[in-house]
């Protein structure tokens, strides 16, 4: 089933790869390379996203802030946080704020990512 997916990462190569792998799986993928863009996108969209892939550390607006925003605007959305800082405390914190899972970067295998989106 076709899902609406938001990918937010300031690292273009990662957002591009995620866009590529997810759209190849037949989903509708929206990409934001900046926290501000992502916030705008979430504010402006009419239909809620089904899934979000949020990078944790980004300039100006962090992934955590966007997580709060998403959870506020569209509580049904499943949010995957991505971080290169796999700290237990951070992980716990994010899960407590409503993130579905915390993915460690680099991914073991990006081609397995679409399996998460069901």
């Amino acid at each position, binding site marked *: 089933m076709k899902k609406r997916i938001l990918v937010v990462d300031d*690292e*273009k*190569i*990662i957002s*591009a*790869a*995620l866009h*590529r*792998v997810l759209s*190849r799986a037949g989903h509708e993928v929206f990409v934001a390379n900046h926290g501000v863009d992502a916030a705008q996108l979430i504010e402006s969209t009419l239909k809620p996203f089904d899934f979000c892939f949020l990078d944790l550390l980004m300039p100006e607006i962090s992934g955590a802030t966007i997580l709060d925003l998403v959870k506020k605007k569209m509580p049904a959305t499943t949010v995957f946080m991505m971080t*290169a*800082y*796999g*700290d*237990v405390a951070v992980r716990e914190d994010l899960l407590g704020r409503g993130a579905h899972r915390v993915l460690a*970067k*680099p*991914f073991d*295998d*990006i*081609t397995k990512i679409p399996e998460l989106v069901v």
Partner: protein
Amino acid sequence: MLSSLRVKLVGEDPEVARVEQVLQKSNIPYFRARDTEEACETHEMEGADLFVLGAKEYSQTHLNQLQRLNPTPDVLLAVGKKMPNLAKVMAPEVLYSGWTEEEILFQLEHALGLHRRRKRLTALRDHRNRSWNLETNPAINLVTNVMRRCTAAEQYPDILSAMLTLRTVVDFHDCALVTMDEDGEVLDIWRNSKESRDHIEKVGIPGDFNREAFKDFEDGKVNLFSSGDPALSSWEKLTSNPWSFCMAMHFSVTRLPRRSRSAKSAVFILFRRELLPFVERDQWLVEVTFGPLTLALEKVAVLRAIGQASKEWRSTFDGISEPLTVIDRNYTIVKANKAFAQLVEQDVKKLKGKRCYTLLANRRQPCLSCPVGLSFQPQVGTRIQPQGKMKRDLLVWSYGIRTGLDSYHFQFYRNVSKETALASTLIQSEKMAALGKLVGAVAHEINNPLAGILATSQLVLSEAKDSTVDPSVLEDLEEIRLAAWRSKKIIDDLLGFTSEAKEQEEANLLDAVRSALGFAKSAMREISVKIHSEKAVPKAIVSVNSLQQVLFNLFTNAAQAMNGKGALEVSILKDGDCFRIDVRDSGPGIKPERLTHIFDPFHTSKQEGSGTGLGLSIVRSLIHKMGARIEVSSQVGQGTEFRIFLPRQVKVGE
């Protein structure tokens, strides 16, 4: 020749009569006495060389009596052919009177020869005594002996008993020591009592015993008198015999040993109780023996004072626990204490005369920063760091001592090697902590682009499989993916190394071992694995992830060490308050010199590129964070064993 022989015949025995006949015939002068007493006391034939005793007169008492004569005569025992066995044993020499006239004469002549030879020897000995040969003079030896005893015992009674050794030179029955103050007043009288020869008693000072008695005594000269002398009536009590012969010698000293510090002089008295006066020879012997005593005692006193001071100084010097030396201007050690000897690992007696820089730093020239030049200025301590084999870190202070033209330097050392080592360890660990932070930051920064590279390469590869792409491009892509993957592993390792402690929970150790083995399965295909465990499921409070990581690292290391083939044994057992997990491999083992370094970061036995050298340091840091401990033992050729000790926390009420 025989006519020069002077003989006394003693006794009424027929043998003696026989000898008398022979002597008469040969015109040899002789004197015949009825018994020994008569022979000794008569003035006839005074100073006879030879006494011929009949068997009845022959006894130890008589022999003693004869030996006290001056000059001491030779004694011949006149006996018949059959003489008693006892006499044979005791007799000095035997004259066989049952023989013919010629034979008896021959024996007498022989005795005369012997006598002359003995006389010559005595003369020679006397000469030697007079010539003050330090080594052979018995008198000197005696004084030395006295000195030694004085030094050791510091008491008059000991001087007295030391003086008893005089008996070897002069025979006497008793001796006494009278000490006087500088005015000649008698302070103490010590007497060696006859009954028990070593018993020293203090004698009460007789009322009329005064300095008059010693007024005319000259230092180091021996005076002879008898206690029966009316002018010296008080001696009666001292000698406990009204008719003793006394020999007294006066000596004064600047400071006599301890007992009475005020004593300035002393009189040493020898008694003979039986009516045997001391003769000139005795007087001379005592004089040469005890004449130097004045000097000797003074020397002893001074030496002891010096010795005491030196001992105090030495013990203070040695007692200081920091190394100390006194060096002269050529850096030659004049004195060094025990701590210094320990510092340079040498015998303290062998240090004198050596150069300080040779001992400390094995140098041929003074140390560059030697503070000797600052000797006369206040200092804060100069650091010298002898290099090479005896590497150590010393702080040195130098204090100058000027004595006349010479100057010495008091060198005070403090071994700060330990402190320095500690400081450098601290610095090292701080460095490591900083490095850890840096590595963590860099790893995180690299992780992002690396994630992109890895993701894209994986993506492109998976897409390319579906389409028709040049296989060589695919290979290149696969290379990129592998390289990115390896980078990811290295960064994971680094992050694991620098990460903070993870949460601990109660976990089943057997499960942890099994899952770690599962992770490491790919590396252990051809390795036989055995797991031993206690029957009760061993549970400990650990961080499961950390423990798995630790075990995984150990397993993969073991597998690599064994080159993929061999046996791995894992045992879980209780060990006191701990659970122990032993991981034993059948690999080639680790050399002892490397064993201490295996936990150091970036230490690897593998070829460059195939290992980060972090595996075991991660193990150690994880183990420490868990509050556990790890040990390793290895034997080259037999394998390596790691032992992990996990604290077993027993719950209250269990």
